[in-house]
């Protein structure tokens, strides 16, 4: 049986396991998050949404995905 390589990352403050060699764009698509309503940060750096495909997720990466909610 083929062993699937998974790596440990932190997504929105919680530990998550993701496939190796996954781009940020693939990952967000997989999570079914509407890209037009969010912003993405990788290791405290904001990533241009048009360039998410250029970033391959690495072990221990810290990803933050934020959106707007009600607030005063």
């Amino acid at each position, binding site marked *: 049986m083929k062993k699937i390589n998974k790596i440990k990352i932190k997504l929105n*403050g919680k530990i998550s396991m993701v496939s190796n060699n996954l781009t940020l764009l693939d990952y967000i698509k997989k999570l079914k998050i509407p890209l*037009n*309503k*969010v912003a993405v940060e990788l290791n*405290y750096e904001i990533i241009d949404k048009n360039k998410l495909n250029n970033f391959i997720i690495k072990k221990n990466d810290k990803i933050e995905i934020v*959106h*707007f*909610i009600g607030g*005063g």
Partner: protein
Amino acid sequence: MKIDHFIVAKKKFKSRLIVGTGKYKSMSECARAIKISGADIVTVAVRRVNISDKKKPLLMDYIDPKKITYLPNTAGCFNSTEALRTLRLAREIGGWKLVKLEVLGDKKNLFPDMIETLKSTEVLSKEGFEVMVYCTDDPLMAKRLEDVGACAIMPLAAPIGSGLGIQNQTNIKIIRSQTKLPLIIDAGLGQASDAVIAMELGCDGVLVNTAIAKAKKPFEMATAMKNAVIAGRYSYLSGRIIKADYARPSSPLKGLI
């Protein structure tokens, strides 16, 4: 009477009432209250997406940012670094440059930390943001904010969510007389008459959240706030009578039988 637009950062708005989108029972209640209030601008917060529950309703599904101007805030930020990070993320969501800066210094009273606020205003303005700034009602700090590029001065009336109304009318009057920037009362209003007073003091607008969202009947309070802001503005523009210590008859004495 010519149309009296509310102008912030060179953008024209019809309503002088800005409404916060927090603390409502549901998204649909929030959306309806905003519609009733007639607000053109609503404040929104930036938070993590709920990864585990993606069916949770999204604000953008209820309030269309193409129809209503979103004003991203930095509520919950207690230093400049956090506030800058939050607003840069807000800009990335969809190009928002008009923002509400709110750097808090005290968890109990939610008073703004004006040193951090001033620092953040300067950085954000240089980065091309149009910064509407939540601040204390200190005229000297208001002037400093203006000097570093704030596009609107937003002093608190009283602590956030307190509903106490304007605690220091004199300071608001002084700030009004010293600045041509939009002056917006942000935080602490409790009822429609508080909004009228703010507008009669010459403020350009008011920002209300808790007073509407937590009223027993939010839709009725949204209506009241809408009309209060209009009434207060017209009252301010009309030039009130001079106060007198004694009565002045309203009916002519001539021809009295």
